[in-house]
């Protein structure tokens, strides 16, 4: 009886030590769920969800403060991915802004006065230029977030939609045409 008790106590102490050690040794910095949600978000950093960037939105979702259907650039597909990741029901899009075609910022270089306001607004440093020098957009880095539009004092930035090119052309989902037979 006593032996059994001692064995159990020893076992409990040993397992407790192992658990305590692993808690310290394998401690994860930060919330891994935030990272996972952030990986699904499109990283446009546009703030259309109401949060100042993708990471803050991911944090808000992880905390349960934000809904999963607020990201217009992520589109319907993004909501599905978030629903799968978090194990919640899919919700149709619920924000104010609606998803739109992918676009890239374009600066009309004739009109640009070189005020650097758009450079300061760009969340991914995709605009190059200097004070009183013409600015231009690095199209390959632009996420199409439209954050450069409001600060421009001369409205010289437009957002043309990206046209389908040969290099990124996609095969379409097969369409089966139905024929009337009677």
């Amino acid at each position, binding site marked *: 009886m006593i032996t059994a008790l001692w064995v159990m106590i020893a076992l409990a102490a040993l397992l407790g030590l192992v658990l305590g050690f692993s808690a310290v040794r394998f401690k994860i910095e930060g919330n891994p769920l935030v990272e996972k949600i952030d990986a699904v978000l499109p*990283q*446009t950093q546009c703030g259309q969800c109401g949060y100042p960037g993708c990471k803050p939105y991911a944090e808000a979702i992880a905390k349960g403060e934000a809904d999963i259907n607020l990201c217009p650039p992520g589109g319907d597909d993004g909501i599905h991915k978030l629903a799968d990741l978090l194990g919640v029901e899919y919700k149709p899009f619920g924000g104010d802004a609606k998803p739109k075609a992918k676009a890239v910022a374009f600066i009309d270089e004739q009109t640009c006065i070189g005020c650097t306001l758009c450079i300061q607004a760009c969340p*991914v440093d995709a605009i190059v230029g200097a004070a009183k020098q013409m600015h231009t957009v690095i199209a390959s880095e632009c996420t199409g977030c439209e954050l450069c539009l409001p600060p421009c004092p001369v409205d010289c930035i437009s957002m043309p939609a990206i046209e389908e090119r040969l290099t990124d*052309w996609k095969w379409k989902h*097969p369409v089966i045409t139905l024929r009337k037979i009677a």
Partner: protein
Amino acid sequence: MRTLHHFHGGIHPTSHKSLSTHQSIARAPLPKSLVIPLRQHAGEAAKPCVNVGDHVLKGQRIGTPSATLSSSIHAPTSGTIASIALHQIAHPSALPDLCITLIPDGKDTWIKREAVDFLALSANEMQQHLRDFGIVGLGGATFPSDLKLRHPIKVDTLILNGAECEPYITCDDMLMRERASEIVRGIVILRHALEAGEVLIGIEDNKPEAIAAMHEAVSAAQLDYAVVAVPTIYPGGSAKHLIKVLTGLEVPSGKLPTDIGVQCFNVATALSIKRALDDGEPLISRIVTITGNVEHPRNYEALIGTAFSDLIDLSVAKRDTNRYIMGGPMMGVVLPAVNVPLVKSSNCVIAASDTLFPPAPPALPCIRCTRCAQVCPAELQPQDLYWFAKSNNFGKAQEYSLADCIECGVCAYVCPSHIPLVQYYRYAKSEIRERSAEKLAADKARERHEYRQFRIEREKQEKAEKLAQREAASKAAAVVAPSTPSVDDTQQIRINEAIERAKAQAAEAHPKNTDALTPEQQAEIASIEARRAKIRELATDAGADDEPHKTS
């Protein structure tokens, strides 16, 4: 006799090859204009290196490689560059691409052609030569040939692909029949470049004339190359499957043939390599089969950039032709227009009509008969892949190795429900490709955004540090002040000194009329002073008396 191996599945469609093998290869006449696309190879489009209005000679380079995975483009004949602009090309999207339009002068004047002794070339020089001469794989993938020689790899077996498994196509067959010795010369060069041990020339056994011609050429050159007749089974001409049949080795998923010590070239590529080195001629023409619903099906040697419509006119399309298929009936795509130019990858154009290729009956639901799985040469599960592609479940499709699908079309061929399976796989593949590109872009954007935030934070910190440093400096100055008074301190001292001086002056000053006074006057002053003192005393007393009244 070699022991041959089998690959899983495959089908035996009617070959229809004899249609276009009755007549020898004809040289297509020089067209009125040539439209030469700058993207004729796998990878990046070439960069134009001529200007509109320039006169170019036949074989002159007009496009240079713009990246590692790219190749050169040459003028197919002498003439004037009329434009460098977007033009419709042979692509299922019907989207235009950058093309150089050349108006031939009719003289067909060559640039200076120089033969190069390949034995004297180093491996790097050989690669550069092939790159400069625009040599790409002519089997269909148009992969730049120089890159296939690039890696310092050990190749045990060099395989020449003359299988040509798809129905209707006969361009390689006719090429082997008519130009076997040139092909063999190209193989000699390739073997030297790769330092390959064994050379196998695989030809499907439905081309006995080609096999005989290649045998003859090999023995005439006194070489030990093995010309192997492989069983006719579609898709036996796919590089991976030909390697399996000839060597029994399987190229692992996601790997290259060179990883298992094998390299594979198309026979037409061998010929173009021979021409590039022995004759100094770049790749400016190719053999193309015009067949199907035409009066005179035949193979033509045509210049790159010739419009398909010119070639079809030579063969005379029948009345009921309603579309044209580029490539074979299994893997080919319908041309968006018939006037698009011939490119390095164009091996065949089939005139199609509803009698020749009746439209597929409407697709019915999948009944899970798994006939597609039985014939799939890549040993995939097409019925599952179809299910995943249809429901946009791309992650699952990737798990089921969709990337290993070679889009050969045997699954759709045997499907009793007539489901266009390959279309679903192509759709899923391009969606997956786009998503992975988007993912890469998102990761890059995240990195840039995080770096920007880090930079802003760092700048803030640097500013705060500078400010703190300045404050610390001014405090230190205040402590040291006594020994080295600051500007403010000296001013204060001066003011104090001035006040002191003024006080001293005031103390020294005496009323001028008090000197030399009479004793009466002095007595009067004294009495006045005494009265004043008395009044002051009274006043202070009264003030002191007032105090209690105020408080009471």
